[in-house]
C-alpha cells in the first residue's frame, strides 16, 4: 500500500463540555478524493479547521506528506502543499481575478521579500496565473475586480488560487455551497479533471456531487466518524442511513 498523503489519528477537540471532534481517524491517499459528510453540527468545520491549522487539537496527530504537522502553523502547512478553500468564499475582493491567482503563484514561488520590481509585470507570476485561470475556465474574466464576480465564479476563483499554489492536497470546505445546478455541474467537472493528480479532502452537502466524485466517504456524526468506505458501501450502510441520509437535506 502506498503511503497516504494525509493521515489523521485519534483526533480529539472539545470546547468546554462540548466534544466537537471525537477520536477521528482518517487517511487520504495521494490520488484519492475522500469526502467527509455529515449532518449540520456534526463537527465538519471544526475538523477541517484542525487539519488546516486554524485550531489546535486536544489530542491526536495529523501527518501530512510524511511529516507530523499537528503543531505547525497554518502558513507552514500551506507551504508543505496543503491548499484549501473556505466554506465562505475567501478571496481578495478589491483586486483583479488575475491578481488573486498571481498572489497564490507568488506564495508557491516563495520569493516575496522582493521590494523593488513591480509584481504586476512579473511574468514569473502572471503567466502561471493565466494558465491556472484558463484551467478553471475563468480566463475571460482576468481583469475583473474579484469582488464583482458572480458567486459561482468566486468559488471557481478560490479553487484556482488553491491550485496555483501547486498543492499536494486540496482541502475543500463545501465548494458547491450556494451554487445553482449548472454552476455545481461545472465545479464537479473541474474537480473531476483534477482527480488523480492531487489528493482531495472534500467536505460537501451536495450528495450528488459527493457520490459523483468521491473514492471514499467518511460520515461524521456528532464529532464521531461512524463509517468510512466506498460510496456504495456508505449508501448501503444501515447506521449511516439511520443517522444521516434519511433525515438531512
Amino acid at each position, binding site marked *: 500500500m502506498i503511503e497516504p498523503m494525509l493521515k489523521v489519528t485519534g483526533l480529539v477537540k472539545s470546547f468546554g463540555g462540548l466534544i466537537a471532534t471525537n477520536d477521528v481517524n482518517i487517511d487520504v491517499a495521494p490520488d484519492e478524493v475522500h469526502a467527509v459528510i455529515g449532518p449540520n453540527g456534526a463537527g465538519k468545520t471544526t475538523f477541517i479547521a484542525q487539519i488546516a491549522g486554524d485550531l489546535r487539537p486536544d489530542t491526536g496527530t495529523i501527518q501530512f506528506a510524511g511529516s507530523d504537522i499537528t503543531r505547525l502553523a497554518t502558513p507552514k502547512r*500551506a*507551504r508543505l502543499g496543503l491548499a484549501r478553500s473556505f466554506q465562505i468564499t*475567501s478571496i481578495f475582493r478589491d483586486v483583479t481575478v488575475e491578481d488573486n491567482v498571481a498572489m497564490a503563484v507568488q506564495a508557491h514561488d516563495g520569493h*516575496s521579500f522582493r*521590494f523593488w520590481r513591480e509584481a504586476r509585470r*512579473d511574468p514569473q507570476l502572471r503567466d502561471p496565473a493565466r494558465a491556472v485561470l484558463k484551467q478553471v475556465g475563468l480566463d475571460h474574466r482576468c481583469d475583473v475586480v474579484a469582488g464583482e464576480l458572480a458567486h459561482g465564479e468566486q468559488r471557481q476563483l478560490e479553487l484556482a488560487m488553491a491550485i496555483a499554489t501547486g498543492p499536494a492536497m486540496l482541502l475543500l470546505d463545501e465548494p458547491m455551497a450556494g451554487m445553482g445546478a449548472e454552476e455545481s455541474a461545472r465545479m464537479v467537472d473541474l474537480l473531476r479533471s483534477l482527480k488523480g493528480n492531487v489528493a482531495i479532502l472534500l467536505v460537501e452537502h451536495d450528495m450528488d456531487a459527493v457520490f459523483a466524485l468521491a473514492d471514499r466517504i467518511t460520515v461524521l456524526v456528532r464529532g464521531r466518524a461512524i463509517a468510512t468506505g466506498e460510496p456504495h458501501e456508505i449508501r448501503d450502510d444501515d447506521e449511516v442511513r439511520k443517522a444521516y441520509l434519511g433525515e438531512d437535506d
Partner: protein
Amino acid sequence: MTMNRRGVVMTLFLITVALLPIALVDQPFYIGLFSRAMILSIAAVSLNLLLGYGNMISFGHAVYIGIGAYTVGIFAYYEIYDGFIQWPVGLAISAVVALIFGAISLRTRGVYFIMITLALAQMLYFLGVSIDEYGADDGLVIDVRSEFAGLIDLEEGIAFYYVIFFFLLLTIFIVHRLTNSRFGVVVRGAKSNEVRLRALGFSVYQYKLTAFVIAGVICGLAGLLLGNFTNFVNPDMMHWTRSGELIFMVVLGGLGSLFGPVLGAFVFLLLEEILSDLTIHWQIIFGPFLIAVVLFMRGGIDSLLGKSTDD
C-alpha cells in the same frame, strides 16, 4: 501611470511646491511652514504604509520622529555635527526600535494593537522626560544643523527646503515601488484578507514586521529632518497626541493612496495655522471638521480626485 485627473493635480502640486521658494523669495516664514509640512508629509507617507496598506493602526508612530530628532540633538549636544554620522545612526536606531516594538505589538491585533503601540511609544516619551542629561522635557537645543562636508548647507533655508523636497519625492517613490512589489502585494493582501493570505502559505507576521520597520526608518528620516528644521527636540514630539495627528493627516488625505498623506499633511498644517490665527477657539471649528471628514468624505481628499487608480 497615465495622466488622469489625480496625476495632473499631483504634478501641478509638486511643481508648485518645487517653485515655491522662487515665488516666496522674501517670505522665509512660508518657506519654513512648507518645509515643516513636507517633513510631516514624509512621516505621514510612512505611516500610510502601515495604516493604508498593511492595516496596522499604529498609535505610536511619532516615536520615530522623536528618535530621529533626538539623534541629531544628542550628537549636537556632544558637538558632533557630521550628518554622515548622525543620519545613519538615527536611521539604524529607528530600525532597531521599530523591530523591537513591531515584534511585540504585531502579536496582537485590532484595538489591542492600537493600545500596545501607544503604550510602547509612551514608554519612550517618559524615558525622554526623565533623562536630565538631555534636558528632560525642556529638550535639547540644536544650534548647529547637520553638516555634510560642505556639500550642502542646511542652515540655508532654501537649500534645506530642497533637501526636504528631495527626500519627500524619494519617499513617495520608494513607497510607490514598495507597495507594488511582491512584498507590497503581500502587505496589501494582509489588509484585504489576512486569513486567505495565511492559507496561501504566507507567514503574515514577517511581512508586517518588515513593513513596520521600513515605515519606522522612513519616519526616523522625517525626525532627522524635523530636529534640524526646528533646531530643537523634546519629548513632546513623541507624545501619543502627535501620533494621533499623524493618523489624522493620513486619513484626511486618503488611506492607502500614494499622495493622499502629503495632501493631508499640508491641509492639516495650513488649516491649523489659518484657524489658530482666526480665533483662539479654533478647535471648536476643527473638531467638527474632523467629524465631517470622517462622516462625509470617505477616502479623504484623495477621493475628491476621482476613483483610485493606484492599484
